[in-house]
Every structure is written in structure tokens, then in C-alpha cells.
């Protein structure tokens, strides 16, 4: 079976981090850590491999608790930050606000 190339790249990871207004922490080489907050609550995080914009980021869907299809929608814009938050609430990955 021919390889299709990475489903998600560093470029996609950076776009998603921007979209979710992630806080970027510089980690050990080769990663940066993208941390997503909702209000004061840290709800998700994922590593971004630096170096080339083409590095594979196949772990993004599980880190974001989404299917690959929805992760692609998040990277390519049709899925908004609010829609992702709704998915996270549906999966009870955001604690109920008082």
C-alpha cells in the first residue's frame, strides 16, 4: 500500500494551536507544548514537533479527543473553537461550571 503522507503535519498542529488560542511552552527538543485552556481550566494539550513543517502529527486526534475527520475540520477551519468546546463538554472533558 503506498504511503499517503502524514494526515496531520506541524503546520496543521500550529494552525490548531492558533485556533484554540493555545499557550505555547517550549519543552525539551524537539517539542513545544500547546496547552489549551477553557476559562481558567486546562482542558487539553499536545506536543508540536518543531524542525520541519511537514513532520507527522498523527497523535493530534487522540490528544484533542476527536476523530481524524473532525481534527481535519478543526485544522482547515469548518470546525470552530466553540464547536470543539461543545464536543469536549459532551465527552465530559470539561468540568461543569458552577
Amino acid at each position: 500500500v503506498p504511503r499517503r503522507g502524514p494526515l496531520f503535519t506541524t503546520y496543521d498542529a500550529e494552525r490548531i494551536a492558533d485556533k484554540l488560542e493555545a499557550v505555547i511552552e517550549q519543552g525539551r527538543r524537539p517539542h513545544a507544548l500547546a496547552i489549551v485552556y477553557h476559562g481558567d481550566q486546562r482542558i487539553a494539550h499536545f506536543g508540536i514537533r518543531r524542525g520541519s513543517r511537514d513532520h507527522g502529527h498523527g497523535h493530534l486526534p487522540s490528544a484533542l479527543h476527536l476523530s481524524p475527520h473532525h481534527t481535519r475540520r478543526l485544522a482547515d477551519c469548518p470546525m470552530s473553537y466553540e464547536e470543539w468546546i461543545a464536543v469536549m463538554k459532551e465527552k465530559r472533558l470539561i468540568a461543569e461550571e458552577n
Partner: protein
Amino acid sequence: MDFDVVYTFFRRLAMANETTNRKSLEDRIVDLTARMERRADAKIVPIQTFEPEPYSLLKPMSVLIEDSEDGYLASFFDANIGTSGETEQEAFENLKSLVLDMFDSLNREAPERLGPEPARQLAVLRSFIRAA
């Protein structure tokens, strides 16, 4: 409003949703099939040490290394942490770095600021790792 116009509108809307859902399902089937084929060749490699980093392991951590579209994916499923590399070894080493990055980052966070999943991840990591 004319019944036929309303009916046609909702019929088209339903067809559009059906097409989107079918595309989504097809994508998921292709992805799952590819993942199952890759899993057949996957291997589990234990992390035995973080040396020379100043952390001790309380017990080995099992890492799944699998072939991916452009290299290898390394995953520590217990804490839902994953990354990739051009080779199996690189993916494994990258994962070790990322696990420590996550551990440090989560430990710096005030406990009340951690959502359900990050809190669970930290609890899992603390059952495996101790800062020396």
C-alpha cells in the same frame, strides 16, 4: 408558505447531511483499516529509564510503536500521550522527552486548574515517574 417548497428544502438538507455523514464514515473506515494494518506490525517497547534526566521510574512504561503515514508513531496509552519520529528509535526518544515535558508542565499547574483529562494524566504519570 407552500408545503412543497418547505418539503424540498428539508429533503435537500437531509440529503446534504447524509452525504456529509457518509463521507465522515468512509474516512473513518479508511483510517481504522489503515490503523489496524499498521497495528499488526506494531511493537511494545518499555521505557526503563529517563537517564540522564533527573527522574526515576517507579515501574516500566509500555510504549506502543507503530508504522504511520510518514514514519513512526509512539504512544503511551495510559496517559494518552503520543508523538512521532522518522525512525522507531527517534519516535521512542521523542516520546520520552514529551512525557517529561508533560509531567513537568502538569506539575507546575495549580491542581484546581486541571480539567478532568489533564488531572487524570498527571495521576497516571505520578504513578510511574518521580522527580529525583
